[in-house]
């Protein structure tokens, strides 16, 4: 795909757009063309301004300076509805459908086809939805409720909605973060067919293999500014990473060798009906054990049960030889277990509380004397961990929601590392965070293991699993289907077990 400029003006361009929030310049003089029939990748670390750019295109934010052009003519989006009318559709990482309405109702919300009696014409609506799904080549029943659809299918419903609006500009904000391999392939096929149909697609992802497999041009942003836009053929992963961080990134997976100590976490025969069954594994001090598998294989459910947030029906969890009471996170914490959960915003942090309040939430009693909290001790403890993890925040009193994803993850890590755990369970520790922070998290996990901590890592990113883990446990449909030592773990062996084709370990 050569970058010969098409004759028609691009369906959507940004010209010298700037946007500030208070003293933070989120976008500075950014220009970008989204051309018809092209998939355009947007890369940048978290906090580089990608989300602000997407929201500007979507009409959520109005630029302080510069302008948005539609077909070469200046356009003012004051509301998301304005952008929608101009043919812009945005698919967010986590779609927001109405769970109790049917798929067809979700697609045609607010513009349902009507019968002559001004009543909703269900038959026409279902037929139209079915036609859209047929064009997308997917099988989703139009009359089923949106509740219970996988995230991938929810995204497809959003895409169908965009198609029904005749969207000419489709923005996909990290659509693959929660998808499994097969689902990603299907999404790509849909994106390509939309492109071939003449739509302009903006694709945002932290996964370079996807960017290079799918996209025609790549724009890199750093610190709110445009760095470069090039055809993908002229780029390498290294070049993109260098431009994103403005420096060379050392090895992404710096796993140190660590002395393997005694067994710290022993899980035996853990079962919960319909979710996972007969999960048995042991983690030793100084070891990183990865739980790999497809999304929905039950990995998060297992670690949540181990930590006691979820219940389990049978089996046992022992920490340093002592049985752990089921269903009691406080007991797990007292025994030295920490869980960095999968969903940072919903489970890891209280978004409206300050950085400090979040970081000390797990140590409230340890930081108080005679039952009263000591501000000094809280502040000192937070500052210590903020420095150790190189946290970038306006102030420790700022709401944690004002931080970028990577820094939010650092707060979650600080919150749990401050408890001095013997067993650290991390669930998707680098999901949705930028390359630089990712490397920092990997280095941190490696150092912790080297220091004698037992680390359990749930991850959907194979390179991360293969690079970090001493041992890989692969789950498929609620069961452990393979246990692979570092030397035997390859993309093939892990994927083989993850798709349920391997023999039991």
């Amino acid at each position, binding site marked *: 795909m050569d970058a010969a400029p098409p004759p028609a003006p691009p369906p959507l361009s940004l010209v010298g757009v700037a946007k500030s929030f208070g003293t933070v310049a989120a976008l500075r003089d950014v220009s970008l063309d989204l051309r018809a029939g092209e998939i355009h990748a947007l890369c940048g670390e978290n906090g580089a301004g990608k989300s602000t750019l997407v929201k500007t295109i979507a009409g959520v934010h109005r630029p302080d300076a510069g302008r948005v052009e539609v077909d070469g003519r200046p356009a003012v989006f004051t509301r998301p509805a304005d952008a929608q009318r101009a043919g812009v559709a945005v698919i967010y990482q986590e779609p927001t459908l109405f769970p109790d309405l049917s798929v067809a109702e979700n697609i045609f919300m607010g513009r349902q086809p009507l019968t002559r009696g001004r009543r909703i014409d269900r038959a026409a609506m279902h037929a139209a939805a079915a036609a859209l799904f047929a064009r997308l080549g997917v099988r989703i029943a139009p009359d089923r409720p949106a509740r219970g659809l996988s995230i991938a299918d929810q995204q497809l419903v959003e895409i169908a909605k965009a198609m029904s609006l005749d969207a000419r500009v489709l923005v996909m904000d990290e659509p693959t973060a929660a998808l499994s391999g097969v689902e990603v392939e299907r999404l790509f096929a849909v994106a390509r067919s939309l492109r071939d149909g003449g739509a302009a697609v903006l694709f945002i992802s932290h996964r370079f293999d996807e960017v290079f497999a799918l996209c025609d041009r790549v724009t890199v942003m750093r610190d709110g500014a445009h760095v470069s836009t090039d055809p993908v053929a002229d780029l390498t992963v290294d070049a993109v990473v260098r431009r994103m961080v403005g420096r060379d990134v050392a090895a992404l997976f710096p796993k140190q060798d660590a002395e393997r100590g005694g067994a710290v976490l022993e899980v035996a025969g853990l079962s919960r009906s319909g979710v996972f069954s007969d999960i048995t594994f042991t983690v030793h001090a100084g070891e990183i054990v990865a739980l790999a598998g497809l999304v929905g294989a039950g990995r998060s459910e297992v670690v949540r049960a181990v930590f006691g947030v979820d219940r389990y029906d049978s089996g046992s969890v022992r920490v340093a030889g002592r049985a752990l009471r089921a269903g009691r996170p406080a007991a797990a914490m007292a025994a030295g277990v920490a869980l960095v959960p999968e969903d940072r915003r*919903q489970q890891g942090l*209280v978004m409206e509380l300050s950085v400090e309040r979040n970081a000390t939430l797990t140590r409230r009693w340890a930081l108080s004397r005679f039952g009263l909290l000591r501000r000094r001790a809280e502040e000192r403890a937070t500052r210590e961990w903020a420095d150790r993890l190189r946290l970038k925040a306006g102030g420790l009193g700022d709401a944690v929601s004002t931080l970028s994803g990577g820094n939010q993850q650092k707060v979650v890590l600080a919150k749990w590392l401050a408890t001095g755990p013997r067993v650290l369970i991390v669930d998707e520790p680098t999901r949705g965070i930028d390359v630089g922070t990712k490397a920092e998290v990997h280095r941190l996990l490696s150092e912790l293991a080297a220091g004698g901590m037992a680390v359990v890592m749930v991850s959907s990113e194979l390179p991360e699993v293969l690079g970090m883990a001493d041992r890989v446990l692969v789950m498929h449909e609620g069961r452990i289907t393979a246990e692979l030592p570092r030397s035997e773990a390859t993309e093939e062996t892990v994927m083989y077990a993850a798709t349920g084709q391997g023999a039991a370990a």
Partner: protein
Amino acid sequence: MAPDIGPSAAGAAVEGRAGRPGRSAWRSLLRTRETSVLGALAVSVLAASLLVEGFATGRNGGFLVLDIACVALIALPMTLIVITGEIDLSVASTLGLTSAVMGQLWWVGVPLETIVPLCLLLGAVLGVVNGLLVTVAGLPSLAVTIGTMALYRGLAYVVLGDRAVADFPMSWTGGATSRLPGTDLPWVALLVAGLAVVFGVVLHATPFGRALYAIGSNEEAARFSGIGVPAAKLGLFTASGAVAALAGVFWTLQYGSARADNAFGLELSVVAAVLLGGVSIFGGRGALVGVLGGVLLLGTVRNALQLADVSADALNIVTGLLLVVSVVLPNTAARLRERRRAAAPPQGPPAPPP
């Protein structure tokens, strides 16, 4: 008791941020709901003193305190419950049932020294029932306590019917409204103040209180942080029941009359005061000092209007308006600020981060 909202004093920048943290901390303090409630309280006290004859007397002050004592007491645990994202609407019925039981026990000849602790225990049990329905059965507290509101009031009628027991000894009834020696201040003011300090410290200075804010903002994250959410809620509902019973005992003695319909509808005054005091009905936000201000503000306005011979209906209208305005005003102010910020061009290019 520093309000537990807004940037804390620890808001000093990690990476030097342009600006004067001292001044902005002041400014954000001025903006809190607590400050506006206390400001409104000061204005209404001042206005009432100047305009309403007989308001600014010690005698009237004493009556005012007696008037609001029960609402103030019940509002203390209610504040903590609402910050946790729950609500307890059964408090006035708990008060009524306690009062009825107190009357019935006195009527059959039990001494008051025994009755009072029994009543407090009864209140705690009624609170535990609410708490268990919310935590173990997992029902929404709004539904649960609307149910028990009717249930407890009904039980009160079962206990006492439409009788009134009014022959409590003068030493107790007079004692309830007696003043501190040498002043016009009823002793119950000390009880309210003492409990306010206890609840204030628990809410704002203990690990338990810190957990309540976390639960109210995001219960799931609180659970993932090892906070015992059911235990905390059960404790709060128990405290709420016990304090409502305490208010029931006081109410009965204050008016010298045990009746099943005592304090009918009082839960709305309590909730109104809590919301007026700046506690978010969605949980996670609020401070006890604001609620005390809210209770005093409502009490002051009602008292002043009563002195000015305003009819009871008009009184309700004014109270209702006050509540609506208190909800609308900060909302509008925030929206205006937002618009002003959007309209003003960003002054000076912010220094790019190093």
